[in-house]
């Protein structure tokens, strides 16, 4: 792709002091009765972002969306949209469209009329509405089902109609509550790219809820990991994956080996974590200062753990164990290696050879090794 400037511009408005966020949550708390769904949450989302909300069921993702769309008001704090407090603005006056987690398709209207519903409420001329609806149908591959009622199509098709309906008005801010959960992998990937494409073309800001971390990784400019109404970490997908700020985030995103131990300074940002008697301490890094003797968790992703028959000479960390289990996943295999301490560490290898030529098998003695920058030391 041709770029106007020679060095590709990195999209990171959150690092730019001069950028004004389009959405600002300022110490927002939302209570239902005496249950706190959102707990003193502050968050900035910038224009053209593809912002993903990730978190376990019931952590408050939908509640955040509903506050943005105007169906819930914050109990405390303010929400600004384009610098203005949106609390007095009714939902139909907000430049926001939402795709509901339950789809909320109108059962008495056909697929076509469902998608046209929002456009008909605007001042768009009739023939343009038709063209726009057809475009949305093509985008979501629902052309063949335009005349059907929602109860005459499948769950995944309903989800696509809901997506098409929210996209149709091309709003400034789009809220998608699990937009692709019911789609098969291929269609999901295609739709993800369509969404990214739309975003590129129209400059719409997306806030998307997803349970699929791979999806968050693919589409998001930033990811917010939530728990119990609080933001645990907000960062780019790579930062969330490579440098999680807590055990919770590390464990929530992707697979991870967690080893508890006591930290000891080893110069610079390097630390040694002694984790079991008779085992060499694990070397790793942490950007924050940790006092000697602090209880920490050493987190290392399975794909960063190498597996070999002989002890590697120059590895910063090497542990011996026996192969306990092998999970064959087609492109990769995960080896579950039991350490003398009884702990099981996962190591991932890509399957460059056929199954029959595999190096290791059950009960083999193997060495696990990783560099001192591969793992992170977490204090929370």
């Amino acid at each position: 792709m041709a770029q106007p400037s020679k060095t590709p511009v990195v999209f990171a408005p959150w690092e730019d002091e001069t950028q004004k966020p389009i959405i600002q949550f300022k110490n927002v708390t939302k209570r239902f009765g005496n249950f706190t769904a959102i707990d003193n949450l502050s968050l900035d989302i910038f224009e053209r972002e593809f912002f993903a909300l990730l978190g376990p069921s019931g952590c408050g993702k939908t509640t955040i969306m509903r506050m943005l769309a105007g169906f819930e008001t914050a109990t405390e704090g303010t929400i600004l949209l384009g610098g203005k407090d949106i609390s007095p603005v009714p939902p139909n006056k907000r430049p926001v469209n939402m795709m509901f987690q339950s789809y909320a398709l109108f059962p008495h209207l056909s697929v076509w009329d469902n998608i046209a519903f929002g456009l008909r409420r605007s001042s768009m001329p009739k023939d343009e509405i038709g063209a726009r609806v057809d475009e949305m149908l093509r985008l979501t591959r629902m052309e063949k089902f335009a005349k059907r009622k929602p109860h005459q199509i499948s769950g995944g098709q309903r989800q696509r109609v809901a997506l098409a309906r929210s996209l149709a008005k091309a709003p400034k801010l789009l809220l998608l509550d699990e937009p692709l959960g019911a789609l098969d992998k291929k269609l999901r990937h295609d739709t993800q790219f369509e969404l990214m494409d739309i975003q590129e073309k129209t400059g719409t800001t997306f806030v998307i809820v997803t349970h699929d971390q791979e999806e968050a990784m693919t589409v998001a400019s930033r990811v917010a990991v939530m728990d119990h109404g609080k933001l645990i970490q907000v960062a780019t997908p790579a930062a969330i994956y490579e440098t999680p700020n807590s055990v919770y985030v590390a464990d929530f995103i992707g697979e991870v080996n967690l080893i508890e131990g006591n930290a000891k300074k080893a110069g610079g940002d390097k630390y040694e974590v002694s984790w079991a008697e008779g085992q060499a301490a694990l070397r790793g890094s942490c950007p924050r200062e940790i006092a000697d003797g602090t209880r920490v968790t050493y987190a290392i992703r399975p794909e960063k753990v190498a597996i070999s028959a002989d002890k590697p000479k120059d590895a910063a960390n090497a542990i011996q164990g026996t192969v306990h289990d092998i999970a064959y996943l087609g492109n990769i295999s995960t080896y579950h290696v039991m350490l003398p301490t009884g702990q099981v560490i996962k190591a991932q290898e890509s399957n460059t050879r056929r199954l029959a030529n595999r190096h290791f098998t059950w009960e083999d003695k193997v060495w696990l090794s990783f560099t001192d920058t591969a793992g992170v030391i977490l204090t929370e």
Partner: protein
Amino acid sequence: MNYRRLFLIGIPYVWLLALFLVPFIIVLKISLSDIALSIPPYTPTLDLAEGWAGIKDFFSKLDFDNFLFLKSDPLYWKAYVSSLQIAILSTTMTLLVGYPIAYGMARAPEEWRATLMMLVILPFWTSFLIRVYSWMGILGKEGFFNSALIWLGFIDEPLTILNTNTAVYIGIVYTYLPFMILPIYAALEKLDISLLEAAEDLGCTRTSAFWLVTLPLSRPGIVAGCFLVFIPVIGEFVIPSLLGGSNTLMIGKVLFEEFSSNRDWPVASAVAVLLLLIVVVPIVLFQRSQERQAEAQK
């Protein structure tokens, strides 16, 4: 087919046969008979003692004279038309009163709904006749309504409401309101609030969301309610007799007078048979719409 199933299917059929078909055949038979000064007041009667000849004789004496008579006297078809008019108008009025009530109930806090439902059904616990009689007490010249208006100074002379069609409409709307409210309430209560949110999200005001989403989705309830009111109101006789005046023409009232004052059972039966035929049309339509509804919800 096993006996258990046969038994289960059989019960409703026996029920229908005993309580609907047999009485209908009796009424149909009387409508084809002639008036007579005897007990029962019509002829012929079937005398099985005379055997085959008796049966032949019996059938030869049946004819359509009563129906021809109904055609010749304008009173009857005027009564039919007037009944239809009153039924249509009062069904509309019941809908206009019932819909907001049902809407209010469906939007009330959940813990109140059972109570509100009770309040709607409560009048059924007292006799229908007593309730209609109390309307006579309310609407009469010296009734509560007139006294209240005079006391408040709105009028000097009492209004004539009782024994007019107005009183009939009031009575019908009052009596049949629960039949309108309950199906509409059932439809509105099922309505998913997130649909209204979606409508608002897509640019509807509260009002337009009502017209575009709530109303169309409560249509099955409206249709059911209208039929449940319309069908019995066509044949209604207690309300027009007690609250209506001499010029209130309803087929149920005519039927009753034919039957008790004139003791003309055959003509009364002919009226009843025709009434049934007229009511069958909306009943069939109602069935159809219910079936279509069930189909759509599958």
